[in-house]
């Protein structure tokens, strides 16, 4: 069971994306747990994550997250704006699978 941690500003639109990603993951029979957290909580949960995805609104925090997971094999990625806006769960999951297999 790998955990994908999504992090965004407040969580309105990200909650929609998580829903779509969970559906997509289920249809691919992936053993992943996808959860979204707002910025101020996410930092406390980086250790549990296999990969951290940041919403484009908070892309500037990438460096902070990379520092938080330094020395561990936890990739930190900013979701591309277009994929995020179009809620392209399939494409985002493809990228995640390429990263963490």
């Amino acid at each position: 069971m790998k955990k994908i941690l999504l992090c965004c500003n407040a969580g309105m639109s990200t909650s929609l994306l998580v829903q779509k990603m969970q559906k997509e993951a289920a249809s691919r029979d992936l053993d992943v747990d996808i959860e979204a957290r707002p910025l101020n909580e996410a930092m406390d949960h980086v250790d549990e994550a296999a990969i951290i995805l940041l919403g484009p609104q908070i892309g500037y925090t990438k460096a902070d997250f990379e520092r938080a997971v330094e020395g561990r094999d936890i990739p930190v990625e900013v979701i591309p704006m277009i994929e995020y806006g179009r809620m392209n769960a399939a494409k985002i999951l493809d990228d995640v699978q390429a990263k963490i297999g």
Partner: protein
Amino acid sequence: MADATGYLDRFADVSARIGNQVHLRSLRDGFATIMPLFILAGVAALFNNVVFTWIWGPSGLMPSADVLGWAQYWGGALSNGTLNISAILLCGMIGYCLAQNKRFDNPIACVVIAVSALAVLMPQTVAAAVAPASQLFEEGKSITTPVSGAFTTGYTGTAGLFSAIIVGLLATTVFIKISGVDRLRIKMPEGVPPAVGKSFDVLIPMILSLGAFGLVAMILFAIPAHTDLTAIINEFIQTPLRALTTNVWGLVIIYSIGTFLFTLGIHQTTINGVLVEPILTIVLLNNTALYNAGKAIPMANFMNMDIINVFALMGGSGCTLALLIATFIMGRYRPSKEVAKMAVLPGLFNINEPVIYGYPIVFNIPLMIPFVLNTALGIVISYFATVIGLISPCVIQVPWTCPIVFSGALATGGDLRASVLQVLLLALYTVIYLPFMKASEKSLQKQAELAEQAEQG
């Protein structure tokens, strides 16, 4: 060009960092936790002033002063439990959120400190007007007498919100700082349960920080002016700040900067949410309290949070609901039309990230113009519509996710003209978006073709 992009990136980065500054963020989080109470206060005011008077009022369906009085007691009680203690609630919540955002391990202690410090700084007597039945009463003269054993809603309610913010941040900061001093910790011998030690850990910092606030209160009382911190804050900080942020042109500039930021991908609330939303919300809550008491709304309070959320951000920042309508009417470019279809449902609830990032608005030069322009127009038009009396002033806080037409009527205490104004504004926004939408389609198509050529080339 590369220079300009680098500059914009830096601008976006700096703005985002301001918006995420820990104190400002805690203030925003603190407000968010008690938002439901303010919404409830608005609903209660609406019932008291519109629904109940419509049924039992002097010219109502079943006129009865008695029943009206009983019914309105319900709204009055709710107002007491929300608006009239809003400063106390906010102060505690800010203490909690600041502790959390600073990763302090005892946020509950910060709630205690913040609320307690606010009360420490309140005046110990309340000026009460002498009743006409009293022997002290003289006709034609208003005599007040100091009453002890009371807190006044002038300090615990909406009028005290601003100082609650400052005291909440200050008291929590002082407490966390003192707690960090190792030498003040009482060391327990081995064998004493750790929880006991923890209870002593907060003891000395609490005594010291509250004691210090008590000293401040004492000094302010002892000087000839006999004042208190809230009075000073209201006079010297809140009044000028309020004049600045509720000025229509000042607000247009601030919001235009915010929406422009959004066209670079940084959420507009990052800036607006911390710089102006707290004060605009305070003004709106003042209005709710006035409306509930049946008093007139002064013109200085016409510019408030509802003007922004209800009229200037329809369907989200930049009024993108209008862009979606424009796309349905005249859109020819398939990818944009697909996004529009998907984004319409969230858009009805004023959530528009799918449009911002997917349509996209971000770095889409033709659309950046109407995006910023529409929000500015919405502020100006709806504010002046209030000033000249076309619509009633906004008095009730509606959740920002409330769909248009409903939100206009609710915000103004049931004035349907506000809903009509919303529809007219939406039509105007759509007309403004149309030519820019066509230009955007052309440029998106060109970009797509170029990208294809690059792949084949």
